[in-house]
């Protein structure tokens, strides 16, 4: 069946089957391999995308349910040479080890800061609680999101000047 969705700002029309998960559609049909599969059952957060403004486990969305949706993947944030502040913060805070959870973490951090630009550490922890990381013990990832909040605040205040 045919669905239409917007991925990273670009509208796409795709022929899909219901046994294609949004995860497969993004990775295989659209080549957005920043979306990762860690468990396939919504228990790890590696496949996280922002769907219609909310964090979503793309492994649990049958492709037809993504009809008319707006999807943001990690590829929609920044590029190597022009990182989004949250990505930059992950690099600077030393939050990246194997990196497999990182696209999902970055999106969870972004989603949190979109809603709550000045989160407490506790709020950051809860915001990331759907994303498992096995390498870092989370400390530097929490740092990274706090750092990004500060960066975005500085950016915001600069643009107000």
């Amino acid at each position: 069946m045919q669905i239409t969705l917007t991925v990273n700002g670009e509208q796409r029309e795709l022929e899909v089957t219901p046994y294609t998960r949004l995860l497969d559609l993004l990775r295989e049909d659209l080549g957005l391999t920043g979306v990762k599969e860690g468990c396939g059952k919504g228990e790890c957060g590696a496949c996280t995308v922002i769907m219609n403004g909310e964090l979503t486990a793309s492994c649990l969305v049958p492709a037809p349910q993504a009809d008319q949706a707006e999807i943001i993947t990690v590829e929609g944030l920044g590029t190597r040479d022009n990182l989004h502040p949250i990505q930059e913060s992950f690099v600077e805070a030393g939050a990246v080890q194997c990196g497999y959870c990182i696209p999902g973490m970055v999106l969870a951090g972004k989603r949190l800061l979109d809603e709550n630009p000045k989160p407490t550490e506790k709020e950051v922890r809860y915001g990331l609680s759907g994303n498992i990381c096995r390498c870092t013990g989370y400390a530097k990832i929490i740092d990274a999101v706090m750092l990004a909040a500060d960066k975005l605040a500085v950016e915001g205040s600069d643009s107000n000047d």
Partner: protein
Amino acid sequence: MMRKSPMKQESRQTISGVDFKEYFQPESIQKALEIRAEYGDQIEVAAGSTDLLVANYEKLHEIKYWLDLVKLDQLKKIEVIDNELHIGAMVTHLQLMKSDLIKKNLAVLAAAAEDVGSPQIRSRGTIGGNICTSSPAGDLLAPLLSYGASFKLQSTEGERIVKAEEFFTGPKRNSMETDELLTEIIIPLTDNKREGSWIKVGRRKALVISTLTLAVVLEFEGEKIVKAGIAMGSVAPTPVRLKGIEAVMVDQKLTDLDYKALGREVKASINPIDDLRGTKEYREDVAVDVMVRALKEIERKVSS
């Protein structure tokens, strides 16, 4: 040694790797009910899909017929009608935890919604899905029981209202017929003061299936308890409402009650099992203490 030798085609390949036949995404309830009536238990009903895709991991291609309710916007509303709160079956956990109506009137349900899985699950998973999956560990189920919720089941033949405590019949089993769909959850409101407590016990603090849940909802006239709703999850084959204990509490002053004795009553009323999430003994012992904790919490709320 390993020469190229694709399999000999001695037999014609006749079995399809995929069993999929049809996907329905109706935009009206009527249409959905007609499809449901036609396919019955042949069709998988998809709401938020967070349970469906887990249950069918690696074999999604074996599902023949899909009935996707995602376009039924009528089922995504939360509204008050005649002193009853009507929650559409497609309302997500995220909507529940953010809704002012829910937070104000059904704080225990809102708190439970906030404890479901993870942000990624709460944004898609629905109250209707949680109910229809009918897992004894479903986080919303104890609160729904304790609020005295009823479920509206519709079919092409009509509709019926089933009380929550009559709906659940076993682990992942319920009294819904194969031609029915759950469309609405109805919860009575009250002008009385209502205070409650929600306790979820799990082996970690987030992203976990409950080892035990407790929802206590008490309605007061003055200091007297006029209505009590006490329900638990993961302590029996279904989520359970502890009516015996409710009866003991009604018409009493909260502070006159022996919390510990009530806790022991709770322990005596449940029938948990040993599983990966905790032992039977653990659940029984914790039930006593969390009951006490819940009542103390309500006492604090009432007095403040």
